[in-house]
């Protein structure tokens, strides 16, 4: 039903009347949406890595003993483990989406009309993975 809604929307948006053209528009739209989410994930990951690094260096510079510093650095590292697990999970989902988009684009290039169902489902999973990353980041703050 949701796929039908997407196709209907694209038809109404002026992509009348060929399904192939609608599929091409939806797939290109999915690529644009994918690329925006990849950029967002990349930016968030760089910030998270930088924050983790800064926290550990701050501990190294302010700890009152070596043993205490080592313990706190290990704790800081563990605190961020779930965040980077979430990024790795997002990477797995996103790789599957890239593969599905490549297959769909190849089908379009060959004159076919690929289904957008799998792409929408994988993009939905990627949105969830992005949400998980943000949730894990909230936990460390």
């Amino acid at each position, binding site marked *: 039903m949701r796929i039908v809604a997407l196709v*209907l929307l694209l038809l109404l948006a002026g992509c009348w009347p060929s399904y192939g053209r609608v599929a091409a528009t939806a797939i*290109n739209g999915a*690529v644009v949406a994918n690329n925006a989410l990849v950029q967002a994930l990349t930016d968030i990951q760089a910030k998270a890595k930088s924050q983790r690094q800064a926290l*550990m260096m701050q501990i190294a510079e302010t700890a009152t*003993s070596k043993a205490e510093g080592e313990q706190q650095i290990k704790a800081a*590292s563990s605190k961020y483990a779930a965040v980077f697990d979430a990024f790795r999970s997002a990477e797995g989902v996103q790789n599957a989406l890239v593969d599905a988009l490549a297959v769909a684009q190849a089908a379009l290039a060959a004159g076919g009309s690929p289904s957008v169902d799998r792409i929408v489902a994988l993009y939905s999973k990627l949105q969830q993975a992005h949400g998980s990353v943000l949730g894990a980041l909230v936990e460390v703050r």
Partner: protein
Amino acid sequence: MMIELIAPIMSAASKAIASAVRHASDGDMAKARRTVERFVAVTQADLDRDEQDAMAALGARFDD
């Protein structure tokens, strides 16, 4: 207008894709035909290196 009419039956993913189509420039759509970006997660080795750097900085303060 149209998206509001059918939005209740669309998934978040469908909405995001439809929104991307509506807001993408011709250049974005043309680029989409050529380039699918890939997300690369930071490796555990990278994270371990940051931890080792911090340990080294800590050691430099106390190992004299």
